[in-house]
């Protein structure tokens, strides 16, 4: 298993960029990947990208949370692109008809609209739930400690 030399790690940390991913371990063959076992995969920590080379094909391995973050960002790209398209089309129309007040107004509106939303809105949690207050047989007798509760995944080792 090839590891990134430790002297390069600080440089790599600066190369995260907006996506926030850093190069992680790489394996030049499936056999080396197989021999590395689960410990090899554990080298792929959150925010790092592992690389597996099998003959002429290269594969990347991410933690699933990082992959879902990328998919979410990619989903937003289309929303951003639509806003840019509107501004671009309005600018082209203005360049062709600089004396038309309606065209100028459209360009200004497009720029204003895009400028009001510099970042696409996101939400990382919902408001806490409040009880609905309907009649039940009382609150006592329930266990709140998850360690004392059965798990639907018990006996499942993946």
């Amino acid at each position, binding site marked *: 298993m090839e590891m990134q030399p430790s002297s390069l790690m600080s440089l790599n940390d600066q190369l995260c960029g907006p996506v926030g991913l850093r190069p992680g371990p790489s394996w030049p063959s499936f056999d080396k990947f197989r021999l590395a076992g689960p410990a090899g995969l554990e080298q792929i920590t959150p925010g790092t990208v592992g690389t597996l080379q099998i003959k002429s094909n290269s594969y990347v391995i991410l933690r*699933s*949370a990082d*992959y*879902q*973050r990328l*998919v*979410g*960002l*990619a*989903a*937003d790209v289309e929303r951003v692109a639509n806003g840019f398209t509107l501004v671009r089309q309005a600018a082209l129309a203005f360049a062709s008809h600089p004396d038309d007040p309606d065209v100028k107004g459209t360009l200004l509106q497009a720029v204003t609209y895009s400028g009001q939303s510099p970042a*696409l*809105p*996101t*939400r*990382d*949690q*919902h408001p*806490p*739930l*409040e*009880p*609905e207050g*309907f*009649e*039940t*047989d*009382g*609150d*006592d*007798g*329930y*266990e*709140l*400690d*998850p360690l004392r*509760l*059965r*798990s*639907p*995944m*018990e*006996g*499942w080792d*993946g």
Partner: protein
Amino acid sequence: MSSAASLARLEEDLSALSHDESPLKVVQDFAKSLGKRERQDVFNGPGVLVRPAIRPEDASGVGLEVAQRDAFVLLQGDLIVTEAAYFLGERLTGTQKFAVANSTCDVMPNRRENAVLFHLQPIRASEPNAKQLLGELLAFGSTRRMYLPALPGDPSDSPCNALNFDGVAQIQTCNLLTATRVASLGLVGWRILASMIRTNLCRITDFEIELRNRLWPGQRGVLASRG
């Protein structure tokens, strides 16, 4: 039989099926038959409400051949993690969990463009209303929330989740198919989910039945003939 009479028969046949709320009542009665601690044990049992994500090879393992047309990536009720879901214009981030609301056949590749999700909220033991929320969830007395056990990746102090039917999230199916599957629903969980979805979208009152009956021109003649 005249078309008016046959339509009346159709309505009568549907009336017992389209908006039936009895499944939820069945669940409530079952929960009530158990002691409180017993409810947690029973509904947390492996495979009851929740089980490890069902894979196509699991179908083969129980003797079911999955035809190409039935090849599934995920199933109705699967509990997933994604950051490509949207709610009222906001993208939902933070590795939140969701349940797939659509029927399994509609979330197979190359079928529908979009899918509907309901979001999960973990209940934390530190919340001031934790016990009351837990009690309400395990009574299955709400049409807005469904009890689900704690899941892998939940906060360490969370005894359970509430599957929230108040508001739906949207996702493009192409992104849903690459979501992280945390778990599938067990048979009982899947049936309760379907009952809850149906109750949420198709719950009615006697007033609405009477209103629609009285406003339906075709029904007036049939009602008159029944006397």
